[in-house]
């Protein structure tokens, strides 16, 4: 079982509400800024993209890489974070 970061645990613990995209696991300041520039200023917008891609891991990773240049680890963290959030709250 891979270990999850503190950020992941915090994000998954409660409904995301109006949390910024930087609150997502794997998304730091730099990536967060890039996403915001693309219009994904809130975490729920990224969630929307995640859902539109039907929660598909590969597609979401590709999209994330293309949008903000996330590396493999960051992609994985973000995907896992959103997936787990969906499992709990969706």
């Amino acid at each position, binding site marked *: 079982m891979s270990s999850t970061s503190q950020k992941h645990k915090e994000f998954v613990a409660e409904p995301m509400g109006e949390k910024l995209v930087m609150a997502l696991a794997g998304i730091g300041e730099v990536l967060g800024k890039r996403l915001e520039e693309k*219009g994904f200023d809130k975490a729920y917008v990224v969630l929307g993209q995640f859902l539109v891609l039907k929660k598909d891991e590969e597609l979401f990773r*590709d999209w994330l890489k293309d949008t903000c240049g996330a590396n493999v680890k960051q992609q994985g963290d973000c995907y896992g974070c959103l997936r787990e959030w969906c499992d709990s709250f969706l």
Partner: protein
Amino acid sequence: MPVFVEDPAQFSKQRLKSELVANNITLPDAESKKQVYLDLYLTHIGQKRAADFSSDEDDDQVQDVGEEEKTKDPEMLDSKGLTDDELKASLLKHGVRAGPIVASTRAVYERKLEGLLQPASQPKLNGTGDTGQYSDSEEEEEISVSEQAGLETASHLDQNQQEDRQTGLNSQNGDTFYPQCFIPSSRLRARKQPGRWKSNPRRNARNVVEWCAEWGRAPPLSPLVLSKTSVGQPKGARPGVLPQCGVLIGNREDPSSSSSQTFSITQMVEEGSIESRCPLSTRAERERGNSGSDMERAWPRSHREPVTDVLMEIFPDTEPTPTGIVATRRRPIKGAAGRPVHFKYPDTPLSPTTMERQELERFLVPRWVQVVVFLSIVCLLYLIYACGEDSIDNPFGAFLENLSLKTGDVEVSLETGVEERLLLKAEPADTQVLDPLTGQE
């Protein structure tokens, strides 16, 4: 690519800058206003962006303008020219159930489609190339597979070998890699005396080495060539085979030997190790100042055993070898796997507890001594008791007499009529005195 339909005027200055740089447009002064950037952006990039926009309405018009020239390409390679439905259909053809193809998802699905299309064409090209290099014989195919498997490790070993040759650190390599990937030392050279091979009947694969050794010179095969390699008729038209051969021969001086093929690495290794070990074993017996451990001294001993030790075959080095391979060998299991028990095991080291116990026992009194002392004391006490019983009156008799005398003096002084009492007193005194004695016993 923009995900939303964005107004460039709403871009940040930084964003405009990055976009300009991405398109190789010279930036204006660093302190220019955003408007300058925006103007540049719009003039140069605006049109391009319009072409890239992925809205449904603009698609047909824009894409047609931008990519009419690609019409000769099949639909496959022109994922951008497809409508959303067409894109979805093509993805479905490849077994991908796509979700809604929206502005944000279109790019992802286009890439996915392109990714699906590309690998379909690649394997065909590779296949033809491979079959052209290798022949159809079964053994060669099998061997080629094993060779390819070992190629990476062999080449890796080659590099390591060159590095470690002088440092003698190959024990690590030898321990981690499989034997078949082991690169025998450079002693694996072409033998000028083929007859020598015959002297060791137990060397089955030796011919492989010879064959490989002679491979570079492309001589006719010797009669000693094994059946295994019989199929491997040297075919000069095989360059691909094995740089392994050259590698395996331990950086030999024959680069042309890379043209050999039809042998397996395991055969090579065994052969090389066996034949190279022969001269070494005799030398090892003489040489004592090996760089290896004491276990290496045991190697010539075990070499006398009729059964060959696999490890010895694998690691023929018992001296500072050109390859620098040094391996410590585990103690052979005497009596196991048919090995005769010629030599006993050396004394096994005792466990720490037993060693401690032995240390302590030097200081502790031995048990037998304790028992003897105990018995002697018991005997002594018994003797004392027995002697005491015989002459019980003697030591105590004087004591009793003193007692009776004292009591007698006291009584006489009182009344004479009490003589009987005296006697009575004396007797009970005696008996009383005796009683404790008897009581003790």
